[in-house]
């Protein structure tokens, strides 16, 4: 499958998962991502895998827990309301150190919200959302091609760190069609899953998810997880830099918003504006050093999001108050236009 084909975002994720060796998928339908389920209900049985429509997102994430504990590559997907229901299971997955891939094609919230694209689940994905001191690895694709490469990468990182990985897309990326090439996932070899629960089979038994009632022991568990998150921060940061390498204003945006910001950079150039763009590809780990460096160089930052200001907090933490950080956002499923952003840019630079 090395040739270019036209494919819808949701289906691209599903096919990429199969190519990455995903053996099981558990999910519950919700717009705008149901095509992932529909595609896999057909495709997974063809490759000897399992598709199961669960009775709820709560059940789905726990089925993921069981399959992951068995050592399989497994995925679930949903959108806002369903991802909220999965938070309990996500918290349990992180402490049991069970790898899996969770896709959130997010939509307008809060509550039932609507089915238009949105980025208002950033806090939920990056800062927790479930209980306890945990982190997900969060990947933010911005094209259908990247949905494929980041789905491949998500399975790799999940296994490498024994941690759930969330792909945070939005309804726009899920629904749009773009030409894509399916390249073979190629990653360094991973350690064998000798922790997986497969029955004793004559060996000493294994337990996943032990009780840790003593405070000191639980602190140890948390510290071990914390060291893992620090290692992820050190090793796995991904971002795209676009536009002027010596900008007068640094733009920061992820996913769908970054696509619009590229237009802003190009249009700005025509008007003689030197604009740079950083598009974080990993939201955790966040590209804080690179943002800090370019922000200091530019002297001003504008963050644009499809929410009322979430990632902007991480940008502010990255620059530690040394550089003014402006924000522009639309929410509820509204998509910011390049023209409005550009006029905001002109205001800031002048």
């Amino acid at each position: 499958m090395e040739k270019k084909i036209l494919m819808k975002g949701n289906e691209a994720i599903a096919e990429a998962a199969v190519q990455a060796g995903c053996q099981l998928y558990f999910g519950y339908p919700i717009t705008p991502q149901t095509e992932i389920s529909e595609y896999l209900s057909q495709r997974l049985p063809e490759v000897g895998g399992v598709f199961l429509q669960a009775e709820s997102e709560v059940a789905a994430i726990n089925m993921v827990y069981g399959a992951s504990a068995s050592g399989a590559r497994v995925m679930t997907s949903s959108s806002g309301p369903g991802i909220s229901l999965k938070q309990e299971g996500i918290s349990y997955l992180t402490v049991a150190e069970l790898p899996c891939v969770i896709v959130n094609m997010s939509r307008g919230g809060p509550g039932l919200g609507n089915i238009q694209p949105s980025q208002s689940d950033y806090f939920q994905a990056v800062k927790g959302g479930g209980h306890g001191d945990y982190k997900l690895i969060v990947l933010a694709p911005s094209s259908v091609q990247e949905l494929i490469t980041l789905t491949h990468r998500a399975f790799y990182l999940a296994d490498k760190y024994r941690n759930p990985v969330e792909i945070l897309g939005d309804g726009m990326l899920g629904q749009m069609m773009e030409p894509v090439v399916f390249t073979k996932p190629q990653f360094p070899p991973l350690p064998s899953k000798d922790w997986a629960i497969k029955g004793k089979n004559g060996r000493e038994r294994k337990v996943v998810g032990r009780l840790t009632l003593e405070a000191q022991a639980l602190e140890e568990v948390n510290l071990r997880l914390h060291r893992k998150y620090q290692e992820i921060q050190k090793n796995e940061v991904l971002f795209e830099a676009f536009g002027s390498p010596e900008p007068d204003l640094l733009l920061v945006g992820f996913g769908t918003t970054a696509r619009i910001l590229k237009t802003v950079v190009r249009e700005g150039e025509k008007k003689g504006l030197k604009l740079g763009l950083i598009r974080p590809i990993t939201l955790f780990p966040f590209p804080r050093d690179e943002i800090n460096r370019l922000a200091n160089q530019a002297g001003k930052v504008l963050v644009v999001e499809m929410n009322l200001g979430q990632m902007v907090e991480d940008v502010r933490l990255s620059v530690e108050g040394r550089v003014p950080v402006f924000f522009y956002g639309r929410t509820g499923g509204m998509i910011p236009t390049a023209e409005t952003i550009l006029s905001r840019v002109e205001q800031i630079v002048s």
Partner: protein
Amino acid sequence: MAVVFERPKTLIKKPFTYCPGCHHGLAQRIIAEVIDELGIENKTIGVGPVGCSVYIYQFLDTDFVMGAHGRAPAIATGIKRTQPDKIVFSYQGDGDIAAIGTAEILHAANRGELISSFFINNAVFGMTGGQMAPTTILKQKTTTSPKGREPKSHGFPLQLCEVLSACQGSAYLSRVALTNPKLINQAKRSIKKALLTQIEGRGFSLVEILSPCPTNWGMSPQEAVDWLEKEMIPYYPLGEIAVKEGILHA
């Protein structure tokens, strides 16, 4: 000399930590005996709940996956769908299986999921200190029904086996108690039948085990056994509730 009584191989050599008169330990011992008799200890995977039942993994020498309150049937589904050659069981209390986890158990049964569930019904939330459970019987006093359960504000005690018997996928459902040797033998037969139902691929199986919680019932072990026989069994009649022959998914 013939050995007539010994510790099951599958029971880890350490004293139970349950309260005196609690039947969690007894139930776990019987499950261990059946696992030994079926010779399945090497391919059995237990799934733990949250509640006093959670300690099962510290006593049964099989692989275990522990997860969130009430979700064991979904976790067990994930394991069984990945490893259909394994014997997968959940062990859950009444709060776990009949309150917070009702949806998970109902749909596992309805799918005819090839797992077995052992359900310890002690009519209270034991671990959290004796609050009202869905299975608390009428007039029973708990810390959250201090004047006794009454249907107008608390609803009725839930008969889970009877509910699950309406599911096509339930192949074997049985309710047992462990208050005398005869009942213990019946319970053991039921537990074996449940696991055989799974091994033969016939559908979902569940054994409900009525069990005293002397600590939270505020009774001595003997009083608790007497109360269970006199008050619980009439509302939760013992016996097989559903037995389906043949292979469900054939």
